[in-house]
């Protein structure tokens, strides 16, 4: 996941009190969701008999379904709650993670990179690395990805259980086991297909459950203009409702970042790394039924991604304006460490607080169901990606190379169950040592930036060699870990060196660390490649730009061309950035 400035602490959800309770109608809505989810698992089981069907949903998804699933796989509840809190804390700066931190990368994936992923017929991102850079790069990438996804699934599981405990008072173990068993059943039965159907459902559910908050909030605030005026009055500054005007210097904005960090660190390296090489999201697009659908799916996903701030960022901004104490004074939400009798709520409770503010019985159940769906879909995404990478890139590549297709499908089902058990163990581990979650979330950022360097050079530069790819990835990853340890031990002095400013805050460190590790990966790859023997051009066919005739995607009119819709999306993206500049 793209690191959040806000979810970087398991304390994130350590709320000491129960916010509300469910009425019978809410429970009915929640139960209906579980029934439908389990039904889907059993329903699609009959058509997931081959490995292609189980791991890649038979490569038969339309552009719309692959696109919605692509964006939905990233729309977990941890992100929703974390970024709503970040919007309260930092204002519209949080929007960058949805716009510049996603849209250009998604379009680049669709238009530039997807043809190579798709025509190489790879089953996974590590699979592409194997074709381009050999077994070493594949093994390194698969092992790190497999470990991270399964740990993230456990973190998701624990986060769900904790949110259910503090919002509704549910028992932690009850939530963990009900969530885990449900996800294990429907992914084990239906594989990626089941996960994708549920992700599309979850996307609709999240909008159905959360869209009322900004709608009613804007009604209460008296529209966007009045909302901005109220926020400016309450916080004493106009900075919370601008995207770019405060990014001239690290000390001018509450996030402590500079525009170069946002544009190059987030908008280029982290965003491109996550959206173009994280197999969890790329796997959804690989399930598309033809090249045009595969190119169009990320474009469709980008269009929907641009709208997500309406249900995530706007509620956080609304809370700055409308939340009041019973005596009419402004209700200030604080950091987790500052919660006390005077300030009983933290930033992280923004979304549940706003949900309870506007939604009575029935609608509350819908909102809670949307959160549960988000958590479960996050777990399913991680587990289905893990099962694919384990079976194809670790088990099938290094342990048992010559098994039958049926055997690999069985391995996929078993690895789903075992992956889920490891996730449960992780969830309990996190429950007993909350700081582990911080480390697990940091781990993802170690691999994303250098992996992007390796993949993009592999796709766009014919001279990149196998040794170059492997050593670039290894040294880039090691440098990222090294910088993280350096900052952990060196404190603010180390942070200021990594982020190039004494005024920089931890988020800036994440952005610049990604940038440096990407640059290190690229430099090492280039240097080692020039020191080693070039790969014969005929071996690069289907893998590298310039050595591969890109097949026609079959578009016959302007409306069918992915590039046309990508231009439409990028124009809207620029307009939005100018409007909220």
């Amino acid at each position: 996941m793209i690191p959040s400035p806000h979810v970087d602490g398991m304390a994130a959800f350590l709320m000491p009190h129960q916010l509300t309770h469910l009425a019978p109608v809410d429970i009915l809505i929640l139960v209906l969701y579980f029934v439908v989810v389990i039904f889907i698992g059993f329903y699609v089981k009959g058509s997931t008999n081959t490995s292609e069907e189980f791991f890649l949903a038979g490569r038969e998804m339309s552009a719309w379904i692959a696109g919605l699933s692509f964006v939905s796989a990233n729309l977990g509840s941890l992100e929703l709650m974390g970024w709503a809190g970040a919007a309260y804390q930092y204002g519209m700066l949080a929007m960058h993670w949805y716009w510049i931190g996603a849209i250009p990368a998604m379009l680049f994936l669709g238009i530039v990179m997807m043809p190579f992923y798709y025509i190489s017929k790879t089953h996974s991102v590590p699979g592409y690395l194997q074709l381009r850079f050999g077994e070493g790069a594949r093994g390194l990438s698969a092992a790190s990805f497999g470990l991270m996804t399964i740990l993230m699934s456990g973190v998701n599981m624990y986060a769900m259980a904790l949110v259910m405990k503090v919002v509704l008072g549910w028992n932690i173990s009850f939530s963990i086991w009900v969530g885990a068993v449900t996800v294990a059943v429907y992914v084990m039965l239906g594989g990626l297909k089941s996960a994708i159907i549920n992700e599309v459902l979850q996307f609709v559910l999240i909008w159905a459950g959360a869209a009322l908050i900004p709608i009613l909030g804007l009604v209460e605030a008296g529209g966007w203009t009045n909302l901005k005026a109220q926020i400016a009055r309450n916080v004493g500054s106009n900075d919370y409702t601008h995207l770019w005007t405060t990014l001239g210097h690290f000390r001018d904005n509450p996030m402590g970042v500079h525009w170069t960090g946002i544009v190059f660190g987030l908008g280029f390296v982290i965003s491109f790394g996550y959206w173009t090489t994280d197999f969890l999201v790329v796997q959804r697009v690989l399930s598309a039924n033809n090249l045009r659908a595969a190119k169009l799916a990320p474009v469709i996903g980008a269009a929907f991604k641009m709208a997500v701030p309406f249900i995530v960022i706007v509620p956080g901004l609304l809370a700055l304006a409308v939340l009041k104490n019973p005596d009419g004074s402004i209700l200030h939400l604080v950091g987790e460490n500052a919660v006390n009798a005077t300030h009983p709520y933290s930033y992280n409770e923004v979304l549940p607080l706003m949900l309870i503010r506007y939604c009575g019985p029935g609608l509350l159940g819908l909102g809670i169901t949307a959160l549960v769906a988000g958590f479960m879909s996050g777990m399913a995404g991680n587990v289905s990606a893990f099962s694919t990478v384990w079976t194809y890139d670790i088990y099938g590549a290094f342990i048992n190379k010559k098994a039958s297709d049926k055997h690999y499908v069985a391995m996929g089902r078993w690895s789903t169950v075992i992956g889920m058990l490891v996730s449960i163990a992780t969830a309990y581990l996190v429950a007993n040592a909350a700081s582990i979650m911080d480390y697990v979330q940091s781990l993802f950022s170690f691999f994303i930036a250098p992996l992007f360097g390796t993949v993009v050079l592999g796709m766009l530069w014919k001279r990149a060699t196998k040794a170059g790819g492997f050593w670039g990835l290894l040294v880039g990853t090691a440098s990222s870990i090294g910088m993280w340890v350096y900052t952990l031990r060196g404190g603010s002095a180390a942070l200021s060196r990594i982020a190039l400013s004494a005024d920089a805050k931890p988020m800036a460190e994440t952005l610049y660390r990604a940038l440096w590790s990407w640059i290190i990966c690229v430099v090492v790859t280039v240097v080692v490649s020039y020191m080693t023997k070039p790969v014969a051009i005929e071996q690069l066919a289907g893998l590298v730009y310039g050595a591969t005739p890109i097949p026609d995607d079959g578009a016959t009119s302007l409306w069918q061309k992915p590039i046309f819709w990508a231009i439409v999306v990028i124009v809207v993206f620029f307009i939005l950035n100018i409007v909220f500049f």
Partner: protein
Amino acid sequence: MAQGTGRGESLSIWFFVGGLTLLYGVVLLPYGAWAWFGQHEAQTVLHHLHPTFWWGLLLTVFGGFYTFRFRPRSGKIS
């Protein structure tokens, strides 16, 4: 067409989307009507706008349309 649910299946993904939202609409709409006309509205902010009723109506229409548009039909197996 049974878009995306696989070979040999007759239910479209959009049918599931429509079905679930219709179910929710069918639960929320009468509940919202009961709360509105029976004076049982929960004391949430803006409750006088009867959001449960109107949201339930919207979900019913949206879900009903998708359920009907992508309903399973005999002989229509992709």
